């Protein structure tokens, strides 16, 4: 298993080995699912939506609907307009969604289909909506696709009607439903009224749907997306996944934005709560204070296990940045941080964190797991954190492994539980401690194995 990776550093120009990120349509589908009554539509060949659907289903372990334009050779020659029109008509006829979110693929982008021109004269049924996002697979990653679709939902729908709604717009970034729920809970506890986009709580595995044309109860309502234009402020959590939409809302409706890290760990959550406090001018609730105290206590109790333990982090950039700050702040050394999503901000931000905590670390984006494995072969770490694809690496390099981020296809439960907020911090600490201590007890001499 991954035995063929050489130790000697190799510079590659063309070959990507063991990629760290999917393509834009994957993120676009996930963002679409966070809109209530929305049918994600993949304007590409049938395989695209199948691959992405499979991956999302394996992560959430629940089924959902995605349609496709089924582009074939004729579309490659004559363009995919006819397929798209047929598809949109069929979707409204058969599945009756409130809104269709069309996203493109590398196929339709290379053909050069102009979605807007194709659908401009399409007679939308009464009260129905249609949005589209350009998500070519050959640029960016699934995070970019997520950001693009969220931004285009705002572009198509958000309107500044001139009557402020005293709400904030929260863009939660590419996180699990469990995280979105926690962000909403914290905002509620802080007395902030909000609209979250996208919101995948209650979207996966909704029971009791009677018919093929019914949709889960969860997701951001279209009316709320329209109302985003009247918000007083946008909290964009995670630059990569949320900045595009926040900027769109600012330019379109004049809603000021505040760009923040994902609220993972003490400091990032503190910043998020202080920002919410500024809006509601309310005292921080007792619940949150108690949770924060618990996090601090756990760190104090367990600090000998964390202290100077080296970690390799890989995954989506927003998550890795937040995790690096969190782990560095509790005395660990985030030695390596790699992300598959292109963009200079990741390395800049990681350098900042390295500088702040005096860490001689390495960060690279876009990178792949082959890079990381080579680094690990030359200078190993104590813990590996990232998505399911790291399990081969953990086995090959014999490292304890914490599954976090997207996709986690080989474990259950995770998507229901948060990693954000203080409660999320407790969970992350729990996972890290268990992985480290299990390894310690696996390897220690028998007579060192004690109950206390």
């Amino acid at each position, binding site marked *: 298993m991954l035995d063929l990776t050489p130790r000697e550093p190799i510079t590659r120009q*063309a070959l990507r080995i063991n990629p760290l990120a999917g393509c834009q349509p994957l993120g676009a589908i996930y963002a679409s699912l966070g809109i209530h009554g929305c049918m994600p539509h993949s304007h590409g060949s049938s395989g695209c939506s199948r691959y992405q659907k499979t991956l999302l289903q394996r992560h959430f372990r629940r089924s959902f609907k995605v349609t496709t334009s089924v582009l074939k050779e004729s579309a490659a020659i004559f363009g995919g307009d006819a397929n798209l029109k047929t598809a949109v008509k069929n979707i409204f006829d058969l599945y009756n969604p409130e809104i269709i979110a069309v996203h493109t693929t590398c196929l339709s982008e290379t053909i050069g289909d102009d979605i807007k021109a194709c659908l401009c004269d399409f007679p939308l049924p009464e009260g129905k909506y249609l949005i589209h996002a350009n998500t070519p697979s*050959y*640029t960016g990653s699934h995070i970019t696709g997520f950001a693009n679709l969220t931004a285009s939902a705002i572009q198509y729908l958000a309107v500044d009607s001139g009557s402020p709604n005293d709400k904030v717009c929260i863009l939660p970034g590419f996180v699990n439903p469990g995280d979105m729920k926690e962000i909403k809970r914290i905002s509620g506890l802080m007395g902030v009224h909000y609209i979250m986009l996208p919101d995948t709580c209650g979207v996966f595995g909704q029971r009791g749907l009677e018919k093929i044309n019914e949709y889960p109860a969860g997701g951001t309502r279209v009316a709320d997306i329209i109302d985003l234009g009247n918000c007083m402020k946008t909290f964009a959590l995670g630059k990569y996944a949320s900045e595009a939409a926040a900027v769109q809302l600012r330019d379109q409706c004049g809603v000021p934005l505040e760009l923040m890290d994902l609220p993972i760990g003490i400091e990032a959550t503190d910043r998020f709560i202080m920002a919410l406090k500024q809006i509601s001018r309310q005292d921080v609730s007792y619940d949150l204070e108690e949770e924060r105290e618990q996090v601090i206590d756990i760190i104090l109790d367990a600090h000998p296990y964390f202290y100077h333990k080296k970690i390799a982090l890989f995954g989506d950039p927003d998550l890795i940045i937040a995790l690096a700050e969190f782990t560095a702040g509790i005395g660990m050394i985030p030695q390596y941080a790699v992300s598959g999503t292109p963009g200079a901000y990741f390395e800049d931000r990681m350098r900042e964190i390295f500088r702040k905590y005096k860490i001689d670390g390495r960060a690279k984006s876009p990178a792949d797991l082959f890079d990381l494995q080579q680094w690990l072969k030359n200078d190993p770490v104590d813990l590996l954190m990232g998505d399911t694809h790291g399990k081969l690496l953990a086995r090959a390099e014999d490292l304890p492994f914490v599954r976090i981020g997207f996709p986690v296809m080989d474990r259950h439960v995770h998507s229901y539980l948060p990693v954000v907020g203080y409660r999320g911090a407790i969970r992350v600490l729990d996972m890290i401690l268990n992985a480290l201590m299990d390894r310690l007890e696996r390897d220690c001499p028998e007579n060192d194995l004690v109950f206390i």
Partner: protein
Amino acid sequence: MSLTERIHTQNKFLTGERDLSTLMMDIPGVLCKHGCCYMACRGLVLSPISGILIITHGPAGCSYYSWGGNRLHHRPANARHDYYSYSFSTNMEESDIIFGGEKKLQQAIKEAVEIFHPPVIAICSTCPVGLIGDDVQAIAEAAEKEHGIKVLSFSCEGFKSIPGYRLANLGIIENVIGTGQKNVGKYPVNIIGEFYNGRRAKEIARIFQQIGYDIVAVLMGDGSYDDLQSAQQAKLNLFSSDKVVADLVDVMQDKFGTRWLRFNFIGMDNIINSLKNMAGFFGNPELLSKTEDLIAKELERVKDSMDNYKLKLKDKVAVIFEDEFVTRHYKALLADLEVSPVTVGNELLCLPGQNEIGFLSAIESGGNAPATQDDTRYDTDLEHYHINFPVSLYEKIKTKIKLAHDHAVRSNPALGSILISNLSQSETEQLLIALQPDIYFPGIKEKFAGVGAASPSCFFNADEYRFDYGGFQGAVHLARDLLMTMNMAVWQNDVAPWRRI
């Protein structure tokens, strides 16, 4: 033209090509489970062959999704050339789409050779490559000369209509098979289309070894490149694909004279027939007696547990939605357990001069796919369902159900079953509720969520939970899983106390 008519026309067109897999809907905007040419070419055929380093030429997404997606459990013959835990791509970016990706592909091949020294490289093209017109074939030929290794190229762009497994298999027959020689046993066979399941391959190998067959090569299963090179030395191709790729074995027969037999390793009768047919093909009395001994021995081995499970599953009602080819597997296994399933479907097959019969049931009763003739008609009607179940069940429920119209109720005394056709969704649901099923198989849940939501269901791919339903033990494993699912205590708590009536 209405949607139903369109599907109808499309199906008629497609059946003209004798490819039954495309019978499943392929219409823009209609939910479908289709993959693409690349997916099948890489995932079904090439990935399982150990010893080939596959480079996906295109954006990184496709190589990301196809990385380690299936459960092969394979043990490579040569760990030095086992690339299964890796995924390679040229990671095409916008500039490559504009200026062409040929240079990047050349460079990627060079880097792969320098790092991994593979004996064979296969290049799989994805959608944009076909559009921008990279000459992948020429690059492969040049790379072969430059690096002194074999470089195969597959133009399996996702938008192509040709099924990917067919494209890949034809490529392998053309370029790989026949390039090597090895020592083979007295009864050499190939296995073609034994899909992505290493556990089943192991079970097949165990049985074949006992009888005395030598497996030369495996295609679309747990195979290796070295073995495939000498696949022409097999005397018989065992063809066990769910998809209709019969023309591939025909191609092999034309090229190498290898004869072929259908082979099914799921369901007791299927296995026994397959083994007997094989022995019959070689015509050796010793082989025949060995086969019979083995069958007797294996049946004896599972008899106790089978009897036990049959008793436990007696009078259980299982519901299957007829939309996938795996349906046939379930039915064969359920038949072993003496459970007659209720089948629900959208399609009716009208053979000339015969009554309408459920489409997949028709295939099953005939053993093979029906030959397509001009007057053969497939009726696909998304809004109406046809339901087929044992007469005994019908007697129990017929007083309980009220159907809106007079529906055609046909009985088939030979099979002891009843077919009710042209039911609406709500009528079908009513029927299903009246039947009080104990278990649902996949497909049914998506279509009848209202009925199936709070009832046990079973996944065919039990491999995740360690067992395979192929082989003589298959039905035992299925029975074990069915009972496990049905008896799970959570069904008693499925409905919250405040919602119970």
